[in-house]
Structures are given as structure tokens and as C-alpha cells.
């Protein structure tokens, strides 16, 4: 079965999209579904496109209910569920402070900016309670001052949706990765989907790191080492602690979590970065297999995460 795997990867959503199918002839149909989902996701959820639905919603904060399309509605719903499930550790209302901190354009442009002359500022996070979603009416209301950033959950949602759509369209088992956030759907190949756990999702596949196999659900890795930028003397990263409005101060370089879906895994890995030292106990209490790597390089395994080399 392994010999029949076929894959493709390409830039998308400011990161890398990767698609792998268990039956090579299924690749074109699965690829078409992934392309379609990526296009829909960008048009609905991008914070960096003036014409995206999210930009229009953010601009309408404080004006009452705004009619949105089904994908943005689903993305906001997933973000609110993530906030509820993590007691607000993952909060979609970090958009304003993230923008003030310097993440106000596509990341490739952030990296090109002169970081030495840039000065960051920060704002209080208004809180996800300021977002009201009315699914039957198809509307979202943002309280005044609320600016959504769906980055933490929308990519994961996109991976889940694309994997499901691709397996339905192609009849093959499918793995979709968006920036290292992975969803699998349909029948897995014998032995599962082999995945390298690395600090950077763009790491070479023959590089160092443990290799694990997935058969269902999702796997997400959050980290503070890759999406970083300079603001004067300070180095900032993109995972905001909603309690402070600033990039999370955390002992973890990366946290990888397996979840029932990629959205679940992403919410938990992001929350773990924000939680800091309490993260292993928090993940353990939720029965989530996880691998945490400290700044020192020490590795902590939680729950059913397999021992490396075992």
C-alpha cells in the first residue's frame, strides 16, 4: 500500500499545503477538492484581503448582526467552540493586538519589513464573549472594538474540510496538511499515515525527529520558533496569550497534539503553548496524546503518545 501513495505540495494561505492519497489515481480528484477548499477559505477567512468576508465583518464591528456565508459562519463557530473548550486560552478576538504587534500583513511581508525600526504595541483582548453567532439567521455580531483573527482554527478547519471533501470525491484515503496541521479521512494505508514531527513543517522529510503513524482524526503542532518577527530589540511570535494581549511567554518550543479532528488538535496545541508549565496536566486530563518540546530540548510525552524509538 505504501508504494501506491502519491502526494503533492504547494504554497497556499501563506504557508504550505500538502496532499497525500492512498491510491495514486485518486490524486487529481482529491487535488481539485483541496484547491476549491483553499480558495473558499481564503476568500472567507483571510485577515489580509480587503475583499474577504472576514475583513468586512471586522470592519462592521459594533454595528449589529452581519450576514455571512456558510464557511465563515462555520469558521467563527469553530473558533468559539475552541475558545469555550479551552476556557478562552484560544481566543479569536486577538486580531487587534496581533495587528498592533506587527502581524498586520501576510507573513512573508512581515518578514521583509525593517524590524529594527518597527515598534510594536499591544492591546487588551476583548474576549470571545463579544462575538454572537446566530446560525439559523446566518449572522455574526461583533461587539465594538472586536477584531477577529481566525488563524488558530481556520487553517485546521480547512484541513478537516478538505480531507473530507477529497476522500468523498476520490474514494481514496486522504491526508491534508496546511502548514503542518494535518487531517486524515477515509481508509488509511496499511500501517497508517507516516508523519515526521519537526520544529518546522517545512523541514526535510529525511531530517531528524520522531516518526508517527496516524489512522484517523488530526494532528497539529504549534510552536513559537517559526512565525517570529523583529520589533526593535524584541523578537515576537504569533501565539497571543489572551490574558495579557502579548505573545505567550512559554517554556515550550513546540507542542504536537493528536485530536479527534485537526480543529481539536490545533485548539489543544495552541492552548498548551499559552498554558505553559500546566500544559502536560491539562492535556492529560483531556486524554489527548501529545509531545511537548522545551526550549532546552527536553521532550515530554503525554498520554498515549508513543515513546520515541520504541
Amino acid at each position, binding site marked *: 500500500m505504501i508504494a501506491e501513495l502519491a502526494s503533492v505540495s504547494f504554497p497556499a494561505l501563506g504557508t504550505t499545503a500538502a496532499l497525500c492519497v492512498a491510491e495514486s489515481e485518486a490524486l487529481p480528484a482529491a487535488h481539485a477538492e483541496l484547491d476549491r477548499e483553499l480558495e473558499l477559505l481564503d476568500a472567507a477567512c483571510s485577515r489580509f484581503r480587503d475583499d474577504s468576508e472576514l475583513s468586512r465583518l471586522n470592519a462592521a464591528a459594533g454595528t449589529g448582526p452581519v450576514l455571512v456565508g456558510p464557511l465563515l459562519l462555520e469558521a467563527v463557530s469553530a473558533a468559539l*467552540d475552541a475558545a469555550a473548550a479551552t476556557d478562552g486560552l484560544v481566543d479569536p478576538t486577538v486580531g487587534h493586538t496581533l495587528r498592533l504587534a506587527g502581524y498586520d500583513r501576510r507573513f512573508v511581508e512581515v518578514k521583509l519589513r525593517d524590524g529594527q525600526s518597527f515598534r510594536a504595541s499591544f492591546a487588551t483582548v476583548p474576549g470571545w464573549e463579544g462575538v454572537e453567532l446566530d446560525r439559523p439567521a446566518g449572522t455574526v455580531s461583533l461587539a465594538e472594538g472586536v477584531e477577529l483573527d481566525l488563524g488558530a482554527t481556520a487553517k485546521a478547519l480547512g484541513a478537516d474540510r478538505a480531507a473530507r471533501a477529497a476522500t468523498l470525491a476520490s474514494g481514496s484515503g486522504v491526508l491534508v496538511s496546511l502548514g*503542518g496541521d494535518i487531517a486524515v479521512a477515509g481508509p488509511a494505508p496499511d500501517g497508517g499515515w507516516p508523519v515526521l514531527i*519537526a520544529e518546522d513543517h517545512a523541514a526535510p522529510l529525511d531530517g531528524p525527529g520522531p516518526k508517527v*503513524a496516524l489512522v484517523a482524526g488530526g494532528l497539529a503542532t504549534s510552536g513559537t520558533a517559526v512565525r517570529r518577527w523583529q520589533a526593535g530589540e524584541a523578537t515576537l511570535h504569533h501565539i497571543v496569550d489572551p490574558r495579557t494581549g502579548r505573545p505567550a511567554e512559554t517554556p515550550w518550543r513546540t507542542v504536537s497534539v493528536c485530536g479527534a479532528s485537526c480543529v481539536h488538535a490545533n485548539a489543544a496545541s495552541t492552548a498548551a503553548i499559552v498554558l505553559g508549565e500546566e500544559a502536560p496536566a491539562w492535556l492529560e486530563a483531556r486524554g489527548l496524546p501529545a509531545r511537548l518540546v522545551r526550549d532546552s530540548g527536553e521532550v515530554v510525552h503525554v498520554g498515549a503518545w508513543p515513546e520515541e524509538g520504541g
Partner: protein
Amino acid sequence: MCRGHPAGVRDRPESDRSRSHARDAALARLKRATRVVLFGATALAGAFAGLAAHSAPGHHKTAARTVTRTIRTTTQAATTDDAPATTSAAPAPPPPPPVVTQAPPVVASGGS
């Protein structure tokens, strides 16, 4: 000649009684079932009326928050068949754990 009653005629009253009992029992069951259905319908009507009242615009913030959670829960239940919990971060059963593999990886999971 005809003093005696034919067997069929003589048995008729018992048969009637038996049928009458059966009918009474069936009517009683029907009555009970009607009561249960009426009770259920009343409870459901109340629940839907409450839901509709909460969904109506003009609620203060706290009520609206409650509605949001209820709506999400309802939607998840309604879409269980074709869209499992994959589109939500609400609590879900633990995932199947990963296992160590020696197969060449097809992708890397890492920061982005």
C-alpha cells in the same frame, strides 16, 4: 326438539365478554398512549417556544451568549451523519493514539 341451545349460541355471552374485555383494555392503552403523546407534545412545544424566544433579536448579551452555545450544540447533533465533530472544537472522544513507524514520512507536522 329445540330445548337445548346450540353450542355456538350457548357460548356467545362468554365470547362477548372476552371481546368486551379486550376492547376495554385496548381503549385503556389508547387512553394512556394519548396522555403520553399529549404530555410529550406539550413539553416539546414548551421547549421550542423557549428556544424561539431565546433566538429572537433584542436579548441582552448574556442571553445571546447562551443562545450561541445552544445553537452550536444543536447543529452538531443535526450534522452527525455527514459532518462529524471535525468542524468543531467542542469536546470529542479521545482520538486513536499515534504509533511509532519506520515508514518514510509523507509530510512533516511542525510550526508554520
